[in-house]
């Protein structure tokens, strides 16, 4: 059996792969943390407009250190800049953009994704201070809700599962998962394998996946540059 830690994609490479599917002219929300990395790999010649739920459309990268304006931050409370054509709006309008079906793509992190599209990404379900932010809103309304994630947890347990064991963020909401080993669609309540690293066999990939990987046609090699 392949040692997947030797072959798996880095977070940057997962983010790069997800960025390839963002079409020109798309309105996109990237979850805080790892998903924010997707913006770095926007495909040349395509323009996406990024939405942040605290009230900006078309923000740009971080300013130089010392140039921060602390009224101009993203949902992760990091300082950002504005692109020409940016807009500000209040929170109710911002979430009208989210729930109202106006975003083309939302890309989120995950603790677990179930084969029916259920997502768990907000709570590990025990102790501590619970916090949800916009996660439960973002999974509803975008035309595509994609997840980027390692294929397994730090202890090697599958993150793609039959049913989530952790508290749900949303029911049947995820449409595609980009992992460190594969690209998997969710269709009619089942996982459909679209791409996998050439270095892992179908059997070994299935062995680290907690639900059946179905084949909906030829499986392409998942090819990502060194980053």
């Amino acid at each position, binding site marked *: 059996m392949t040692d997947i830690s030797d072959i798996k994609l880095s977070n940057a490479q997962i983010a790069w792969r997800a960025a390839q599917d963002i079409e020109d002219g798309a309105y996109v929300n990237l979850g805080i943390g790892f998903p924010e990395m997707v913006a770095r790999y926007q495909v040349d010649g395509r323009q996406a407009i990024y939405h942040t739920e605290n009230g900006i459309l078309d923000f740009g990268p971080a300013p130089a250190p010392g140039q921060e304006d602390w009224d101009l931050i993203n949902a992760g409370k990091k300082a950002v800049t504005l692109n020409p054509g940016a807009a*500000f709006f209040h929170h109710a309008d911002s979430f009208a953009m989210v729930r109202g079906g106006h975003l083309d793509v939302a890309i989120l992190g995950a603790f677990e994704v179930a084969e029916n599209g259920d997502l768990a990404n907000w709570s590990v379900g025990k102790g501590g201070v619970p916090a*949800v932010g916009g996660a439960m809103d973002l999974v509803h309304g975008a035309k595509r809700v994609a997840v980027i994630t390692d294929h397994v947890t730090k202890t090697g347990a599958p993150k793609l599962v039959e049913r989530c064991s952790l508290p749900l963020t949303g029911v049947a909401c995820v449409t595609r998962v980009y992992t460190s080993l594969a690209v998997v669609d969710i269709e009619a309540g089942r996982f459909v394998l679209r791409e996998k690293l050439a270095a892992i066999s179908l059997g070994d990939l299935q062995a680290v996946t907690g639900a059946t990987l179905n084949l909906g046609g030829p499986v392409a090699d998942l090819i990502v540059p060194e980053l």
Partner: protein
Amino acid sequence: MDKTVASPAEAVADIPDGASVMIGGFGGSGAPIELIHALIDAGPKDLTVINNNAGNGHVGLAGMIEAGMVAKLICSFPKSKDPRAFATRYLAGEIELELVPQGTLAERIRAGGAGIPAFYTPTSFGTDLAAGKPTAEFDGRGYVQERWLKADYALVKAETADRHGNLTYRAAGRNFGPLMCSAATVSIVQATRIVAPGEIDPEQVVTPGIFVKRLVRVEAPQQEEELNRAEAVYP
């Protein structure tokens, strides 16, 4: 008409024990620090506070919590770089938390200001945060019923106000401000500039003055993020 009062202290002086207070801001962006600090000086107790977060460091809302003024917090994300003020009291059972998804929080406040007692949203359907709430199916999809949210007072930071209370905001500091002004019985606004009626182009007004009760000029407002970087503590 002139809604201006002389100082932040005067603006918040009548907020009593047990009041519900909406406080604008997303993290430090748009946080009305001077109004919050004036409220800490006044010292009412047993407040219910509605804010997106639960404070950061030892200033602003975190300072209010440390001063023992907050009995209950309604928010979406009670975490920050330094969440100890809230976290220690919450884990000790000294402060109540109502956790609300961020968009639902915004829409509940909007509904409160708009006279809509309840609405249905897809957010949280099928999750722990929908427990005990009525649900319904519309066009084959499940939705959760959420109630409006109103408050006795709102503390909001604006950029420019005219004396009638028409407001503009600064960058993403707008966030909850327009919603909270509409949903509170007494909305109190600190503005960097207060100008004569007519000096704000009517096309540029974000919050119409009907939603604002009191104005106070705070010429050089402090930023929570900068206070925290300087390790400030209030009081």
